[in-house]
């Protein structure tokens, strides 16, 4: 039972990170019906930039409290990624908005390769360690252990998601985003600056991705130029699970996927009599993705059936 609760907690922590990344996929898809393949790489860039800044800050001002240094990293990484998201939309997606469907998908793949390799050229092939700046102490909860970092990740994700929810539901920009998602043409006729809204969507999604990137590298204590690929795939699976295009769905899907993955990795050994072990953890996301696409393509919270065009 203790193991169950422990895995549940680990899953929720991981899931809240997935949810943040999934939001970026789902928002872009909701508006453009485009899978932004490069989104995972934006997450990676967030982590790498933050780590570079953290490393520099530790060299310049080693006496600063750890949290301030990490905050400094985040404060640089988020705007850098926002700019990156803006640039990606502007250079690679906007010129192809009326092109055949395959074209933006292929540029997206190209972009993600370019970002990966640029990161590799800058920071090298090796894993980069996240310095132990954040409090590592753990608390007992229902017989399981929760670290301060884990609590912090979940709390921050919830705050950010509430903020996004408020933005989308209550502000002028949010209303414009929802209108654009329903119909780009009609929204434009009503005076919505559609291009601006699309750019804003990319920028907001990238900011969330940067945060998630810092969180995931702090959580695992590592960052790597290739980390965005798997993270992006899983987050995309989470978005599909929740119902792609649906913001609440991305949050739900992310949390669920995290929990399924953690529990699956914890119990797969017992379930298969030791034939498969926890090294198959990464397979769950894809199985869930395929299962959802077979049985409920609209996802858990999606209303629209995925169109066939």
């Amino acid at each position, binding site marked *: 039972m203790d193991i169950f609760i422990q895995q549940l907690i680990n899953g929720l922590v991981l899931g809240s990170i997935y949810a943040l990344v999934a939001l970026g996929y789902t928002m872009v898809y909701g508006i453009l019906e485009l899978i932004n393949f490069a989104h995972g790489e934006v997450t990676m860039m967030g982590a790498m930039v933050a780590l570079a800044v953290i490393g520099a800050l530790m060299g310049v001002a080693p006496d600063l409290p750890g949290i301030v240094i990490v905050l400094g990293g985040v404060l640089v990484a988020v705007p850098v990624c926002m700019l990156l998201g803006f640039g990606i939309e502007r250079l690679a997606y906007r010129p192809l908005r009326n092109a055949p469907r395959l074209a933006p998908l292929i540029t997206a793949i190209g972009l993600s390769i370019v970002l990966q390799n640029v990161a590799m050229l800058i920071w090298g092939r090796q894993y980069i360690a996240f310095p132990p700046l954040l409090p590592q102490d753990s608390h007992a909860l229902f017989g399981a252990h929760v670290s301060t970092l884990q609590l912090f990740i979940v709390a921050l994700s919830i705050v950010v998601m509430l903020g996004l929810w408020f933005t989308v539901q209550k502000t002028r920009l949010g209303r414009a985003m929802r209108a654009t998602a329903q119909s780009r043409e009609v929204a434009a006729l009503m005076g919505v600056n559609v291009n601006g809204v699309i750019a804003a969507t990319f920028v907001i999604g990238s900011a969330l991705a940067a945060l998630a990137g810092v969180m995931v590298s702090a959580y695992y204590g590592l960052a790597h130029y290739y980390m965005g690929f798997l993270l992006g795939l899983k987050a*995309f699976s989470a978005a599909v699970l929740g119902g792609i295009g649906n913001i609440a769905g991305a949050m739900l899907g992310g949390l669920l996927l995290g929990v399924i993955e953690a529990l699956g990795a914890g119990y797969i050994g017992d379930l298969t009599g030791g034939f498969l072990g926890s090294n198959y953890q990464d397979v769950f996301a894809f199985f869930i993705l395929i299962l959802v696409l077979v049985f409920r393509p609209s996802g858990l919270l999606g209303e629209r059936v995925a169109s066939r065009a």
Partner: protein
Amino acid sequence: MLDFLRARPRLALILVAVLLAALPFLVGAGLGKSWVRVLDFALLYVMLALGLNIVVGYAGLLDLGYVAFYALGAYLYAWLASPHFGLHLPFWAVLPLGALLAGVFGVLLGAPTLRLRGDYLAIVTLGFGEIIRIFMNNLDAPINITNGPQGMNLIDPIAFGGFALSKTHKFFGFAVSNAHLYYYLFLAFVLVVMFVALRLQDSRIGRAWAAIREDEVAASAMGINTRNVKLLAFAMGATFGGLAGGLFAAFQGFISPESFGLMESIMILCMIVLGGMGHIPGVILGAVLLTVLPEALRYVGDWQRAMLGHVAVDPADLRMLLFGCALILMMLFRPEGLWPSRQRKRELHAADEVAEHESASVYDVRG
């Protein structure tokens, strides 16, 4: 010169045949032995690119896990013709089995996803490629099936009776090395695959694929069973992938999961996009270019050493970066590829005007 040959197609054919037959010797003499192996790989990639071209170029389905089928073919060959399980079946039994296995997996994977939008297929195939790789990396315990990350070696070469292609043979006192022998074998396979691809293109099925690629709704209104026809394209591409995989295993004598990463899939896709989607000569050009260019990139390392005194940027690292840039730039500026079919070119350029007109219209319905 070109006009002269165009008027005499039979002469041109003979010239091309002689050139292809002499190519490994010319390359071997001019550039060195290692380049003959590069030629072999180029032919292997031509096979793969032609297979993927059926899926991406003809039917317009983006398959990002194509290398998984390649891996299946290679591993099946290794299981059935290596000391790993002590089986040594002949290649003419193993290669079709590998192709069949890949085709079956293609159907299994395509069936649930092909009724959905194309983007989902891209993601699911991407995931499938990763799943296959994870399994191949980890299925060494508790039962050793794939030998994990170390891979499997001592795979049997292709042999006709006692005539193994892995050895150097003497013909009339003239030594012909294994790289040359595999060249002719692969060339024969490429010609067969090319023939099949060409005939498919102009068949009833080929036209159905083109119709689906251009407008799926209209195609299904014309009575095409879109799901089955797409499934056929997907399975056929997978079959070619499996076949190429078997040949790869026999040629290398060694396989490991490392050869079947996502980047390999992307590279094959690059070949098609760069050469010209759906156009066989273009696809062949793309495949040859992208196999030969990275080899030529090695000289960039020498050049750096000469200019800077050290290698600042590893040419191998540069390779993927250039591929990524090529994908983006091609899509933005020349979406039809380097050597497109005339029809495709016309379509894409006419489409610009139509698209402009459409986006100006308020009642335009897309999606």
